[in-house]
């Protein structure tokens, strides 16, 4: 699976792409810190319990018995969840709409790059409808909305770190 030249090129490219997306998410986190003064998770532990913030499962990419197909599927499913959640951020940061839209474009591209690679590898894939119908979370106050946005980015950053380690793990499975 992973000795194949194309797969190697796929991995190299999309490792860089994931680094780019992580950089863009970090930039958004700096904006949230600068403009909303929400910077440290440890100061929001209690208020977080009042909110139900989407957190995409990625345990298939953790497991010792690592399975590319299920891990890839979970990465794609997670990208979709966070793609939808970013609309919450867009409403919070009206001055940074283009930044969020570019991030969403990158996420959609990464997801379909993974889908195409899975198809090339003959793995089963899911094709999501282009429009995301998942209902947006509602918040009881503007403050909760801001804290919700903060945690969506924090969770997404952790998600990306795990996905990145999974892709890197795949490169290490084979001689480059």
């Amino acid at each position, binding site marked *: 699976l992973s000795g194949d030249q194309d797969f190697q090129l796929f991995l190299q490219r999309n490792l860089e792409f994931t680094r780019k997306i992580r950089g863009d998410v970090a930039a958004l986190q700096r904006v949230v810190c600068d403009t909303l003064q929400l910077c440290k998770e440890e100061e929001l532990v209690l208020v977080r319990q*009042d909110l139900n913030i989407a957190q995409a499962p990625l345990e298939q990419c953790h497991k010792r018995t690592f399975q590319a197909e299920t891990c890839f599927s979970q990465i794609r499913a997670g990208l979709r969840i966070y793609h939808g959640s970013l609309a919450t951020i867009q409403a919070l940061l009206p001055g940074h709409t283009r930044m969020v839209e570019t991030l969403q474009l990158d996420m959609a591209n990464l997801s379909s790059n993974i889908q195409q690679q899975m198809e090339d590898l003959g793995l089963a894939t899911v094709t999501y409808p282009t429009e995301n119908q998942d209902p947006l979370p509602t918040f009881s106050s503007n403050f909760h909305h801001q804290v919700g946005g903060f945690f969506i980015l924090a969770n997404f950053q952790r998600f990306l770190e795990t996905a990145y380690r999974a892709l890197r793990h795949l490169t290490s499975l084979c001689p480059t």
Partner: protein
Amino acid sequence: GGTLGCASVTVHPRIVPLGSAVTASCTIQRELCRGLQQEKVRIRWMLDSKLVAGSQYQGPGGTEVSNLTLPRFNHTHARLWCCVEWNGTKQRLSMAEIRAGYPPAKPFNLSCALNLSDYGLTCQWEQGTDSHLPTSVVLKYMGSRGEAVTGCTPRGGHSHCTVPRQLLHLYRQMEIWVSATNALGTAESEHLCIDPMDVAKLDPPTLQSIQSIPFQTDCIALAWDAARGTEHMELQCELRYRAPEDPAWALVTGIGGRAGTAQHCGFLFGTQYRFQMRCRRNSASPLAHWSEWSPGRNYTTHEKAPTG
């Protein structure tokens, strides 16, 4: 206010004149704060990132309340955080934004000009001191039934905008002014009373030809064309001329009518002069705008013939 859940902050008022007092209160409903039940609730206030002291007491129904007074609030925009001490950290449980500033300053120096290519009326003004608050500025005029109508809204903080032709009533006096509104009040500029045509901004005329009038006079005759789109107007024009060594321009006023020709005397012989002309619509209004000066045109008067 903040959330109705575990903690809620109320601030009164939310938008205040700069330097005035602000009072706030934070109510913690312990039973709704997961993870806080056993703890002794110590409420802390933070204004942006600075700790400020409040006074805490037990409120009704087992709630903990802290009141805070900021005697002279001098931030234009700040966040007031209600926090509690928990596991050695300050947990931010609720927040309220406070803005401070001034009522809008009275816009001044309102002036308008009608653009003859699209007959849009562009007005500009000075905004005055910044109120530090979101302020909506609108150019208004008195509608035919005496009600205030919005002419145009300047884009992104500009202090000019253009009333489109469709909203204008040509050849009729209209009352126009600028209105600025924010949370602390409204201010209006002087009301201008103008007929849009009175403030028409003409393109400059074009000097077509300049000749010395023959038989040894010190006079010249010049022909000029008024700008396109002004054919139906009575114009009032001015000529200025100057020899290179002249300190200032000489001005000839009252060149009027549609004739497009004028004569003037008193020129030195064999001297190169530079001529420029400008026009405006002939109207009683002191607000009428002169066109720019036309592109300059040089002409050397003929030599004086040797006498005797």
